[in-house]
């Protein structure tokens, strides 16, 4: 056995470790990219072969996109503080403090949700030992490897962290031109950023563990995985959308409130004790509005809230480092959860299905375990459901959307977008099995039918789920019937997307295949597909709009139904041409 001597196992300086982390950063980013690519991993590898800077470019692009997304948010505190400035003298200072602190707290929450939304999926590779394994083969102490891991994570989030820290102080400086207030804003922002990062690390490590828990492959763990992904999607989208309505809500609160001034003062004192993110918001707002205008109790409770937050950040930060160190440790025994399955001869049993059912079952099994494929199936349902939820709830929408025409425009747009996304995602699933499918006697018609079955199941759910929010409203029946009438159009569009994709990418001399065999001019082809999809969507929107504004609903339904019939016959004819019935008997 080879053993390293003490002199060989070097204790490296932080500076050296930071330099080394450049390599593990590259490795971890690649790992994340591959994990997120799901069934498209081979394509990523192909792109890397063609362009050695592909991953570097992706890395820079990801940082730039995230920085822009976070950077744009500077408008939120600027708008909030501008609103507060304009309202000075118009309403009481205590009400102004409540509104201002609420808006600033909402801004910090938004920052955190944006970081979670964009940072989590792109950083899964940073929370696995895979990216750091090779370091353990070098004469470096385990403690140093952990430090390299932390430096690696910092490299991945450095630009975003700096932007998050600076946005609020910059906005404060622009609106107050006061260095002292800006410095306090910077301190508040640093503490909040520290908290957001700690949450990202803890959540990211747990999330990665759930996503990668492949060993324990049973129904329970699959359900947990799906639950976590759905929860994450709904949670972050809802939170992001929800938080965005805080500003208009505060505006309307400033315009009219029934609360007595004593009640507002008490509310302020209690709320300013809430560490994340209200106390920081209160402290900054009081400075902005003038410290001397507020009672000692009010100032004291905000400072106390900040001290509590500082302790929470310290505790969470330590927990985040410990969680991270454990997550990247190669000998983390908790990773397999002791659920390793070992089969015996008795477990071997083959049961067969028809080709279409076999493809559908295989796709379903794949979807429940592959994050990207699962997103393609869930997003067409979650996106319209959330949007309709927001627009149908008066509290969130500001004003209830009673305009049924607007609702139809929205549902048609989401239905077509969902159909497009779903079909492209579902067709791509087969890529990971290229070796197997290459030699299988696949009847392409059956394979294509299995893909269409997904549209038949998912699109009606996606289109009907939002109608639940209108139950009890006078126009519910009209909405339900209209939503039902347009579902076939979504399915027809999905079939057309499949045909279009195959025509562009899968046309061979004697047959059409679902695999991408004609990959030349790929970007151009995809742009063309999107344009064709948009033209069809806009065409259907115009038809629906004209019919609804000029004719009765009965006539609209009749015309839409006839249009669907004609287009349905068209795509069916094309389907039969591209994927003829085979008379080959096995």
């Amino acid at each position: 056995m080879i053993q390293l001597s003490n002199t060989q196992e070097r204790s490296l300086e932080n500076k050296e470790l930071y330099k080394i982390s450049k390599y593990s950063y590259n490795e971890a980013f690649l790992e994340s990219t591959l994990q997120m690519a799901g069934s498209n991993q081979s394509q990523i590898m192909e792109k890397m072969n063609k362009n050695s800077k592909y991953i570097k470019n992706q890395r820079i692009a990801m940082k730039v996109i995230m920085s822009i997304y976070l950077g744009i948010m500077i408008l939120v505190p600027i708008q909030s503080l501008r609103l507060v400035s304009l309202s000075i003298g118009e309403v009481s200072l205590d009400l102004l403090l409540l509104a201002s602190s609420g808006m600033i707290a909402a801004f910090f929450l938004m920052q955190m949700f944006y970081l979670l939304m964009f940072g989590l999926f792109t950083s899964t590779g940073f929370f696995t030992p895979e990216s750091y394994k090779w370091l353990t083969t070098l004469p470096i102490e385990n403690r140093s490897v952990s430090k390299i891991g932390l430096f690696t994570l910092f490299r991945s989030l450095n630009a975003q962290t700096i932007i998050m820290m600076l946005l609020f102080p910059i906005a404060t400086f622009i609106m107050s031109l006061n260095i002292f207030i800006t410095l306090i804003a910077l301190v508040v922002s640093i503490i909040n950023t520290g908290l957001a990062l700690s949450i990202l690390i803890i959540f990211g490590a747990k999330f990665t563990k759930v996503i990668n828990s492949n060993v324990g492959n049973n129904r329970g763990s699959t359900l947990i995985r799906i639950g976590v992904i759905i929860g994450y999607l709904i949670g972050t989208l809802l939170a992001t959308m929800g938080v965005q309505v805080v500003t208009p809500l505060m505006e309307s609160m400033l315009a009219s409130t029934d609360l007595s001034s004593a009640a507002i003062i008490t509310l302020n004192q209690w709320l300013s004790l809430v560490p994340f993110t209200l106390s920081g918001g209160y402290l900054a707002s009081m400075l902005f509005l003038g410290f001397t205008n507020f009672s000692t109790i009010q100032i004291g409770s905000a400072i106390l809230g900040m001290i509590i937050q500082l302790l929470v950040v310290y505790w969470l930060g330590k927990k985040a480092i410990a969680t991270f160190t454990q997550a990247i440790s190669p000998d983390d025994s908790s990773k397999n959860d002791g659920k390793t399955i070992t089969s015996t001869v008795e477990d071997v049993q083959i049961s067969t299905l028809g080709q279409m059912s076999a493809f559908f079952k295989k796709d379903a099994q794949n979807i429940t375990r592959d994050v990207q494929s699962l997103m393609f199936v869930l997003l067409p349902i979650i996106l319209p459901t959330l949007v309709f939820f927001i627009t149908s709830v008066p509290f969130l929408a500001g004003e209830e959307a009673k305009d049924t025409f607007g609702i139809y425009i929205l549902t048609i747009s989401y239905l077509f977008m969902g159909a497009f996304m779903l079909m492209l995602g579902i067709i791509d699933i087969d890529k990971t099995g290229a070796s197997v499918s290459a030699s299988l006697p696949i009847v392409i018609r059956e394979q294509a039918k299995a893909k269409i079955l997904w549209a038949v199941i998912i699109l009606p759910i996606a289109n009907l789920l939002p109608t639940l929010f209108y139950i009890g409203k006078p126009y519910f029946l009209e909405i339900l019937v209209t939503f039902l009438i347009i579902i076939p159009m979504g399915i027809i569009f999905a079939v057309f997307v499949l045909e279009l994709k195959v025509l562009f990418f899968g046309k061979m001399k004697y047959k059409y295949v679902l695999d991408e065999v004609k990959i030349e001019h790929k970007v151009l082809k995809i742009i063309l597909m999107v344009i064709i999809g948009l033209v069809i969507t806009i065409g259907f929107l115009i038809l629906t709009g004209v019919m609804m504004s000029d004719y009765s609903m009965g006539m609209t339904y009749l015309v839409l139904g006839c249009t669907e019939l004609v287009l349905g016959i068209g795509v069916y004819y094309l389907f039969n041409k591209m994927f003829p019935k085979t008379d080959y008997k096995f």
Partner: protein
Amino acid sequence: MSNAEKMENMENMVVVDHLVKHFDEVKAVDDISFNIKKGEIFGLLGPNGAGKTTAVKLMLGLLEANQGNITILGLDPEKNEVELKTRIGYVSEEPLIYKSLTPKELFNFIASIRRLDGEKVTGKLAQYLESLDAIEYYERLISTLSRGNKQKIQIIAAILHDPDLLIMDEPLAGLDAKSVKVVKEILELHIERGGSVLFSTHIMEIAEDICDRIGIINKGKIVAMGTFEELRLVAKDMDGVMDLEDVFLKLTDQDESVKDIISKLRSTMNSHRGS
């Protein structure tokens, strides 16, 4: 076609005739011809990037040839794809075998697509899994398996339906010694049954150990073909060529570069030792 030619073609499981495939300017396969007889293991031997995998993909109908013809089991792979694939098995170099499935789910899927009798195939599958020490991974996700275990699963998937022709691209990559022995035995049984094998590899020793006849492919062209005895005779006629490995290196234009590399390597190692 004369009767004699027809008779010969009947014995030929694979006939590749002046096949050409180019990607833009690059000729990946450049006018290659060979055949594989019933009960024969034919090796396609060449360095990385020589055109082996492209040739295999053309035979499977995954790519369209620019020129030439392929006949496998009397069928055209482009026109009779489904019928042909019921009779062939394929092991690829890179085991892309639905990483999100377990072997159990994968075999159920394969048996369904091939319309195999579930009851009949169950015993055979259990035997293959047991022989290759893969039974314990039967219900684990393929993505969690090692390269070698993925390869075992891929090999079983290719032979489960008793194909007439096996097309194998570097099938022994990643396998342990015991599994290599078992796979060789499986190939032997396949040949005894009257099957044939196209065995693509870039390692001379493996080809010599397994194949009856080989074609050496380089830069898309077949530069030599025959039995090992025939190739040894070629070696005798070549200057400075000692064995089959030298023949291979010479025919694939790698002999000079290998000599150069070895010389530089020795010089570097010796100078470091000296200092």
